[in-house]
């Protein structure tokens, strides 16, 4: 929290501190932030959440626990700590085509601190994620300022991440180890501007803009491209993907939320995305929240569409067709829909007066992805290379969690 001013520091002292900063550092200081969507000037509530998640779709299951604790210390400081785990069992279409099914666990820890001074909130945090073939360290910083009679909150954010990428190989005795010939790195930077604006006594808007840059190894080391090779095997040959070493993405979103006369809320949002790889995406989402007695019910519909990257192809005409080549389906053209419902029940915990409120929550989402140029290559022997049916993904996502406020 070196960014925060000490309480009671003299005006001259503060001016001296500002003068000590070079223009570059002042600019960096202004950008050193990450978007915290909550209204500034208010620290998070003292709260603990324990969640179990379960994703099942496309022959992949990912499940595990997640814990998040937020606790204030005095009137100005708030700390948070979290733990998240993904237990992955994958036999996805990509794995079946070019690798072998696997099980692995990803563990993530995060800590953060927020400092409130007047109408300004400073925040920073650190996230560490580790899996057998991927280690990521992320730091983030943000500053939020309430203004115009507290109708407006502006947040500036910055994040920096360093990834180390390995590739697992199976030894003759069946043991899975990191390939000693493969060790890559990737660096990421993100800049965020967020504006939250009260428009009427029932309507609030939230605008977010985020610029992200990546540099380093950005491909998936396990996935392959395929190119036509008539007369051989299923009519195609697999080869390594070749990605650019840099990527810059821009995303801007606008959300509106309205309080309805019968104590319910409705929200709508739109996000536009474009990157230097040629991907353009649109996201539209609508949410409805309806409390009833001790319950709160939520419904959500989300629509997403993207165009493919310039260097993506499901089947290249021949080997070394162009300098960059990818077949990651995240870079294909597709449309997806997500439908979600959630229910939350608030209850009192007898014999625990220190718990002011508690809730039990369940949420279910269904994700459907309709790929426009990613084919099921596993059916090449039946249909012929390039004539396979387009791939579709259906996934069910469950969350169960308990929250307490203290």
């Amino acid at each position, binding site marked *: 929290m070196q960014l925060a001013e000490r309480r009671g520091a003299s005006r001259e002292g503060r001016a001296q501190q500002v003068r000590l900063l070079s223009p570059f550092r002042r600019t960096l200081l202004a950008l050193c932030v990450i978007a915290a969507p909550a209204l500034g000037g208010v620290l998070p509530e003292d709260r603990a959440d324990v969640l179990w998640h379960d994703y099942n779709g496309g022959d992949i299951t990912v499940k595990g626990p997640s814990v998040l604790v937020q606790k204030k210390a005095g009137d100005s400081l708030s700390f948070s700590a979290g733990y998240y785990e993904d237990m992955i069992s994958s036999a996805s279409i990509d794995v079946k085509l070019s690798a072998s099914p696997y099980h692995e666990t990803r563990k993530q820890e995060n800590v953060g601190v927020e400092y409130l001074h007047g109408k300004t909130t400073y925040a920073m945090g650190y*996230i560490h994620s580790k899996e057998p073939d991927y280690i990521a360290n992320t730091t983030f910083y943000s500053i939020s300022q309430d203004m115009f009679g507290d109708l407006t909150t502006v947040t500036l954010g910055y994040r920096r991440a360093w990834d180390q990428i390995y590739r697992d190989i199976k030894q003759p005795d069946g043991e899975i180890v990191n390939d000693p010939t493969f060790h890559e790195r990737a660096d990421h930077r993100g800049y965020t501007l967020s504006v939250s604006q009260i428009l009427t006594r029932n309507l609030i808007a939230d605008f977010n803009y985020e610029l992200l840059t990546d540099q380093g190894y950005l491909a998936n080391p396990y996935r392959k491209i395929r190119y036509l090779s008539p007369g051989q095997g299923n009519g195609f040959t697999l080869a390594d993907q070749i990605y650019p070493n840099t990527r810059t993405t821009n995303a801007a979103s606008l959300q509106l939320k309205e309080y309805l006369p019968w104590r319910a809320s409705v929200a709508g949002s739109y996000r536009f995305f474009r990157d230097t790889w040629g991907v353009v*995406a649109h996201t539209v989402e609508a949410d409805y929240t309806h409390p009833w007695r001790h319950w709160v019910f939520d419904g959500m519909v989300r629509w997403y569409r993207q165009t493919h990257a310039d260097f993506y192809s499901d089947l290249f005409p021949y080997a070394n067709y162009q300098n960059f080549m990818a077949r990651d389906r995240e870079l294909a053209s597709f449309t997806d829909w997500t439908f979600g419902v959630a229910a939350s029940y608030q209850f009192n915990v007898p014999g625990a007066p220190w718990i002011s409120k508690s809730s039990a929550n369940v949420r279910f989402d269904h994700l459907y992805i309709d790929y426009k140029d990613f084919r099921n290559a596993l059916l090449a022997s039946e249909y012929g290379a390039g004539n396979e049916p387009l791939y579709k993904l259906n996934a069910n996502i469950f969350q169960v969690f308990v929250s307490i406020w203290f």
Partner: protein
Amino acid sequence: MSSSRRIRLTRALTAAALLAALAGCSAPTPWVKPYEREHFADPIMSFNRDPISSVYLDHVLESREGARGATGAVGGGCGCN
């Protein structure tokens, strides 16, 4: 246009620009008074009522889509193979 008339016009435009700039610097009067904001204290009006849940769902979608960012969430990196 004579030079004196040009100077007067320049001065008038400068004064108008200064007034406009000063008006821009003054804080606008809040059109929603503090006592009219009780609905925003209701948790159902939060954009992120349950951060542990929304961060997870953002992570699931971001792992499967090409787009990312501008969701208000900060995620850790992962291979997401």
